[in-house]
């Protein structure tokens, strides 16, 4: 008899559902992919329905339903925050109390109304927020035992948790508590630099290499106090989030000598330097914490989750520092991954079921391809119904050759094949692809496809066996969570005199080729790597291999299949719509090739530039 557990994260941001059967991850998906609302916080009914469909079960078959956060502990924090702050906390308390008391505490009612049942357990179970992050990191990892590090904005009270996992148990032994939070520090500076909290952090990380860490000492002096063991406290009087509705306050602004940058305004040298500075501080905290954790646990392996674990530059530094022999990071490290952690906690900890011994070197995340797939017959039904011309090439080798040739000719490809990714990164199932050798690829993809800031770099998907030929890294990076240097012999000298001399124009740097792979080489000669194996994604591997056969280059440019502010596409319809709204040349939907030149005029029924809020 199987044991089936559903995990849910909701009512915060990035709602999601995940389903585990007998310890195996069957399905996981984020609600935003179905609802088309970025970071959708609502009860994830669409994601749950998908998980049930994928498992071929009804909701009554669920042995347990586990929520990723304890509402009582969360409300405790909300209330104590108000008690501590006093009258200035009124507006914040009103909003927070409405949210927790209005929605989050009525979990059973939400589930019963949506599913008609509470499963066999007859109640919704609750796991601690950081326990679910820890479970999402440890249980799918390839390690029998490991140290655990979770870092995020805040979950209940914890913002950083240290622990260890072994067999089917998770233990957390040390924490940092709200209001002290490395994630909130990073988010506060994200906000100060004019980007949106909870989605702009990635931009700040991308901006950092343009600057110098001139403010790092100032941040360490005025905003965060870090101890040698990596533990820290914030100078909370300089932040706005305790007693107001913004992350920063006037004292925070004074630390950096002026007001915040207005969103969408020109990025100045100051923002570049602040980004570089907070990035350096973050890396320092992560490295010190990891060293402490290694000493405390004696473990050779480390697993990580929580939003801070999506900082792939810090992850790359951690990997290179070799504090641990091996590092594994949950690809859905943010709150969506809490659904997966909740399901795994339910199976291994609540049900007490054993964890299968890891197969040498292989994790259990299945390439994080845990979402829905739309097979060829469904794709063709969609295309035929809408009278959209397409070319079907059933033979995989032949199809890959055609697509590889198009990439080599500078075409931009929309690629929607196989099961959708779980986690914020596109890993070759819902991706936009281009030629990394072409010096125009970065600007074309940024400005004509993604409609986003030109400073943001793109990532390479590289054949795993050729990774070390291109990058200075000695491990796999299957989930695009590690940044590493491009090999020195591939790099080209850049003229930085004008830029370093005070010119804020990043285009003078961006437009210079930095290596023989200009589209994926960032201004500091680094790249955010995805190593691809046949085992994880057969079709995607075959495509890169075909590109290599044609050009000798064993990698392609990979960016998420969406425009700025839009959730990554899920269905063939989403993919076609995004394809037609941009200047992509070819859309690959399983074995169907949809060429732009053949398409009828696209009548867009939505003002998508208004619908997708900028981040």
């Amino acid at each position: 008899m199987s044991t089936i557990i559903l995990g849910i994260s909701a009512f915060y941001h990035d709602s999601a559902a995940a389903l585990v059967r007998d310890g195996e991850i069957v399905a996981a998906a984020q609600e935003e992919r179905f609802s088309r609302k970025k970071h959708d916080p609502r009860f994830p009914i669409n994601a749950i329905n998908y998980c049930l469909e994928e498992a071929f079960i009804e909701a009554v078959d669920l042995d347990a339903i586990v929520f990723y956060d304890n509402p009582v502990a969360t409300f405790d924090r909300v209330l104590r925050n108000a008690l501590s702050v006093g009258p200035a906390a009124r507006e914040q308390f009103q909003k927070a109390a409405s949210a927790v008391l209005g929605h989050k505490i009525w979990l059973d009612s939400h589930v019963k109304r949506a599913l008609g049942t509470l499963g066999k357990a007859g109640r919704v179970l609750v796991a601690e927020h950081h326990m679910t992050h820890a479970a999402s990191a440890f249980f799918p990892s390839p390690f029998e035992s490991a140290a655990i590090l979770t870092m995020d904005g805040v979950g209940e009270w914890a913002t950083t948790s240290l622990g260890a996992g072994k067999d089917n148990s998770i233990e957390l032994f040390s924490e940092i508590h709200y209001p002290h939070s490395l994630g909130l520090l990073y988010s506060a500076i994200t906000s100060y630099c004019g980007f949106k909290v909870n989605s702009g952090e990635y931009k700040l990380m991308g901006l950092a290499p343009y600057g110098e860490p001139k403010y790092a000492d100032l941040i360490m002096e005025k905003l965060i106090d870090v101890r040698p063991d990596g533990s820290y406290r914030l100078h909370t009087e300089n932040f706005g989030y305790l007693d107001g509705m913004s992350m920063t306050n006037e004292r925070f602004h004074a630390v950096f000598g002026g007001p915040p940058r207005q969103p969408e305004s020109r990025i100045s040298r100051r923002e570049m330097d602040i980004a570089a500075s907070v990035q350096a501080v973050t890396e320092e905290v992560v490295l010190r914490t990891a060293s402490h954790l290694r000493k405390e646990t004696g473990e050779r392996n480390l697993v990580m989750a929580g939003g801070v674990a999506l900082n792939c530059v810090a992850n790359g530094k951690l990997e290179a520092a070799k504090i641990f022999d091996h590092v594994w990071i949950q690809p859905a490290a943010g709150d969506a991954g809490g659904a997966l952690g909740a399901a795994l906690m339910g199976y291994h900890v609540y049900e007490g079921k054993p964890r299968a011994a890891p197969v040498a070197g292989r994790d259990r995340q299945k390439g994080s391809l845990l979402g829905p797939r739309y097979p060829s017959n469904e794709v063709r039904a969609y295309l035929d119904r809408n009278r959209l011309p397409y070319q079907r090439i059933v033979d995989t080798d032949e199809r890959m050759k055609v697509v590889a040739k198009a990439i080599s000719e500078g075409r931009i490809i929309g690629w929607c094949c196989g099961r959708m990714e779980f986690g914020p990164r596109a890993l070759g199932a819902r991706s936009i692809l281009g030629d990394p050798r072409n010096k125009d690829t970065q600007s074309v993809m940024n400005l004509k496809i993604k409609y986003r800031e030109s400073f943001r770099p793109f990532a390479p998907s590289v054949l795993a066996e050729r990774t070390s030929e291109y990058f200075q890294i000695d491990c796999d990076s299957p989930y695009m969570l590690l940044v590493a240097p491009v090999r020195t012999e591939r790099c080209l000298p850049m003229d930085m005199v004008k830029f370093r001399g005070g010119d804020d124009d990043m285009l003078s740097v961006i437009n210079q080729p930095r290596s023989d792979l200009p589209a994926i080489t960032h201004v500091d000669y680094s790249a955010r790597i995805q190593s691809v194996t046949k085992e994880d994604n057969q079709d995607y591997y075959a495509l890169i291999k075909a590109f290599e056969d044609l050009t000798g280059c064993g990698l392609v440019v990979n960016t998420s299949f969406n425009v700025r502010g839009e959730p990554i596409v899920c269905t063939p319809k989403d993919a076609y719509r995004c394809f037609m709204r941009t200047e992509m040349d070819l859309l690959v939907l399983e074995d169907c090739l949809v060429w732009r030149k053949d398409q009828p005029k696209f009548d867009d029924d939505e003002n998508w530039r208004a619908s997708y809020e900028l981040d």
Partner: protein
Amino acid sequence: MSSTEENSVKSHVAIDRFFDGELMPLASRLRASEPGLFLTTVDPSAESYYIKRTKRTMSKADFEVAGCVDGAEFARRLAVHWNGCGCQSLALSIGKIADAVRVEEHDSADVSPFVYVMF
């Protein structure tokens, strides 16, 4: 004014009344008896800021705390959670507010830009 807006106004009134009538008076009392409900300041003499967890793992019973049917049940949970601390006296009122602000359908897909602290 729609019924949703009316409910929202009623909720705000209930929460405001609680904030002024119970929460802030308690804050004043606690401020005198428990200065620093939070550790909000840095301590240069501290070797470490880590807080050692007294409970390192989750037991089966720890999972079984959800399932509020009404505000009174939530109030009981809070009272247990706050056993022995100054907040315990607030539990009953919070249970009543919970009944008042309860929303059956979560129809807003908007995420606050202030996501971390609001919830």
